[in-house]
């Protein structure tokens, strides 16, 4: 049982052939828990998220990423997804001409054996439940993947996919940014609906506000490519009130460390 978790061990990684971004990340999200990951712009949160999902534009230099005790470093992104991992992207791409319904059916079937494809009725019932949970109009499923979507609609689509694909571990990269208050509640409800003993999530956010709706079991703070502080949900409130400097100081890190790639 203790193995049921998402784990990052001493992860060092760089942009393929380029600059090192992650400098020894350690992080554990046990199944059944929701953890928040916070940290200044440029500290490496999205890089970590994409590395976990297997983005080939980054290179692992050292360390490991494990799902339920098994290393996934050698797995392709699709294999990691089929192992139960899901990433809600900070910036979801557009894929013209591919409808959400069509795409999700393919994605669901990719997880199943040939010959055991999801039934059409079963699929639509599932999709409709998810659309409803997000308080969305049903016509959305016939629209092409993010083509012409507003920022908030893209975020909603990422959570819709999460509800349909039912991963065992989800990473939500700023799924709250760009959402109005009502949409924020809707998205939070969507994530809460997925909560359960067999679901673990890492919620990346800049705002305490989201954490009022998705109450985290733990909060981690990332800075300069490392997790420098972890604590209970109250840590997020401190950050909201005081910013990051006090933690950085505590760990002897300068603010420029996070923005180094922008320098």
């Amino acid at each position, binding site marked *: 049982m203790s193995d049921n978790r998402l784990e990052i061990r001493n992860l060092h990684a760089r942009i393929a052939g380029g600059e090192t971004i992650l400098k020894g990340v350690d992080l554990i999200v046990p199944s059944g828990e929701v953890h928040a990951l916070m940290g200044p712009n440029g500290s490496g949160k999205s890089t970590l998220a994409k590395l976990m*999902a*297997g*983005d*080939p*534009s980054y290179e692992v230099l050292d360390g490991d990423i494990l799902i339920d005790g098994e290393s996934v470093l050698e797995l*392709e*992104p*699709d294999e*990691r*997804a*089929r192992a139960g991992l*899901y*990433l809600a*992207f900070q910036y*979801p*791409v557009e*894929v*013209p*001409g*591919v409808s959400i319904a069509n*795409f*999700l059916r*393919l*994605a*669901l079937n*990719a*997880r199943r054996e040939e010959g055991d494809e999801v039934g059409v009725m079963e699929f639509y019932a599932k999709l409709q439940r998810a659309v409803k949970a997000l308080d969305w109009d049903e016509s959305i499923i016939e629209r*092409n*993947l993010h083509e012409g979507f507003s920022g908030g609609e893209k975020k909603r689509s990422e959570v819709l*996919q999460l509800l349909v*694909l039912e991963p065992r571990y989800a990473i939500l990269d700023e799924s709250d940014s760009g959402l109005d208050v009502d949409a924020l509640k809707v998205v939070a409800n969507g994530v809460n609906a997925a909560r359960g003993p067999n679901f673990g999530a890492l919620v990346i956010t800049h705002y305490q506000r989201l954490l009022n709706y998705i109450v985290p079991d733990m909060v981690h703070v990332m800075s300069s490519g490392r997790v420098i502080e972890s604590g209970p949900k109250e840590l997020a409130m401190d950050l909201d009130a005081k910013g990051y400097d006090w933690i950085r100081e505590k760990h002897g890190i300068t603010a420029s460390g996070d923005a180094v790639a922008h320098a």
Partner: protein
Amino acid sequence: MSDLRPINDHPDAAKLEGLDHTRQYDFQLAENYSYKSERGLNKRVIEKLSYMKNEPEWMLKFRLRAFEIAEKKGRPKWGPDLSHLNFDEIFFYIRPQDRKGTNSWDDVPEEVRETYKRLGIPEAEQKMLAGVGAQYESEMVYHSLKEEWEKQGVIFLDTETGLQEHPEIFKEHFATVVPPEDNYFAAVNSAVWSGGSFVYVPAGVEISVPLQAYFLINAQSMGQFERTLIIGEPGSKFHYIEGCTAPTYNSDSFHSGVIEIIVKDRANVRYSTIQNWSHNVYNLVTQRAIVGERASMGWLDGNLGSKVTMKYPSTYLLGEGAHGEVLSIAFATDGQHQDAGAKVIHAAPNTTSSVVSKSISKGTGRSSYRGLVQIHEGATNARSNVECDALLLDEHAMTDTYPYIEINEKTAHVGHEATVSKLNDEQIFYLMSRGLPEDAAMALIVRGFLDPVAKELPLEYAVELNRLIELEMEGSVG
């Protein structure tokens, strides 16, 4: 490329039909024809051919005249490289009974049969595609449809039978849209044509079920030099479909068809074709429609196979308020050159047209869009919009665009838009992160790219096209 003259100076072009586009589809049947003409093109071959078809005198004369024209014209000096096309090695006529009966299903290579199976094509149809000459399963269906059509006065026959049974209608329209003088390959076709479809729909008759050339397989509708003649009388409405997304076997390496369509006033005609010839084939087709007052012509043209394809469906909007539409898909893989496009001539006021071309190049494939929009003086308020989008799947894949626009009328509105995109790594990663393997992710992006055109296809064709793209993408991941 400076020697490329505008397409209207040359006729639309001819085509070669190559059946499929990936190497795994390429196959050959044993050569065991009991009769073939001698190799090469000459008067003797034409006389023999006409004699064997028991044709009227005028047709023989027409053929011989066309041969002289071809001799005089010579091959086009523009467009794709045709230097490997050697007429002296080609049989210009093979009797249909010889073409069929002697081939055996057992001769069709295992991997081709496997491809058919994976495409989910019924066995009877597989045999037909492989040129084995099996009866098409739906023949029964066809017979009841045919009775229905006959009651309405619709004629739907292979072209030879059309000539025999309806000599007057035939002679009145034949070669009026594409005369042999039009271009070299049209002249060659006129000299040696065999097979094709003859369609006549009387005034005011609307047919809801598409007329499928499949139904005419016994008449070798996909012959080497097929000649199709389609006539829509005033106010008629119908859809003609031929070809198939599945790789079609053909042992001939040169295919040059002529398709003539006459859309009379207020008629509405659609012609859809998807061709997937084997990699050895030069596919040079002339297809053209003339469109009357407030009539409408729609082309859907899919080119997947062949070594070289040159094909530019053209639409002459001759009557006031006539409308023309072209949807074109081209898929070029290793060693292939798809030179496709459209030609629209606005020769009357208030005519409208739209061209959407989607091309995909993979490996060392090259796809070219070659198009002409011409607005004649006096064709007031003509409107035309052309959109061509190219997708490159590999570093070495190529695409080019030759859009020619000639406007001789001040009131014309002509739009042209061209885009070139590459397969996007971020999109692939995104789709993979949802569980799709890389090849499936690529196939999905390609399908999405083609979607605006594919959704105009009849469902079974769209399904086959999708399957084909998936097959095409399989194993394309290093």
